[in-house]
């Protein structure tokens, strides 16, 4: 069974948006800064609703923020 991984580009997108802070992103997405830290470090996978909210903050499609990959080496 391949192991799924969800990568994200939040750090890069924050940098491209005038070095937006995690606090600012958290405020705009309506969550705590700790949640943004957990998502950015791939320790927590957000709900679909929150994922869309984060994508909307950056004004990009969802698949530019989150990338779903399966680890084929474990097959």
């Amino acid at each position, binding site marked *: 069974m391949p192991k799924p991984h969800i990568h994200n580009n939040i750090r890069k997108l924050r940098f491209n948006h005038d070095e937006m802070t995690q606090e600012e992103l958290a405020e705009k997405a*309506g*969550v*705590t800064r*700790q*949640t943004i*830290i*957990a998502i950015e*470090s791939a*320790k*927590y996978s*957000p*709900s679909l609703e*929150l994922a869309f909210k984060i994508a909307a903050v950056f004004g990009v499609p969802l698949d530019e923020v989150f990338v779903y990959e399966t680890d084929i080496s474990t097959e």
Partner: protein
Amino acid sequence: MSYQQRNVMVALVTHLMIAVYFVINWLVMYTGEGLVAKRVFTLWLTVIVATIVVTILGTILTNIVSAIANAIKNGSEKVETFIEDERDKLIDLKGTRISYVVFCVGVGLAMLSFVLNQPALIMFSVIILFSLLSEIAGDIFKLVRYQRGA
């Protein structure tokens, strides 16, 4: 430390103190004049009421103190917001699940005391002890999850 972590920490300290109070009083009773129904149920009532009252007061006081500390640190312009988001709710749910599992084990052990021909007061004591231990287990689990960031 976030708002939720502070509340969990207050709840953990409260539950630990009340569990210690319960165990000490129970041992004094058990080794002294033995278990008497009236005293066991009085202790049970004291523990339940103290848990509710001390947790509420502790949470209120912690939030007042942290709000004052935050105002002094950042000035009155930036007000700390207390948001509970989906991750907090998920951690809370998982902590509650751990609490229920521990409490179920306690109820099982309490029923086992009947099999071992122990008096009914032992069963009631095991149930109240495990209700406190289940809360402690849930609080520890939540703190660990917050520390790990997941």
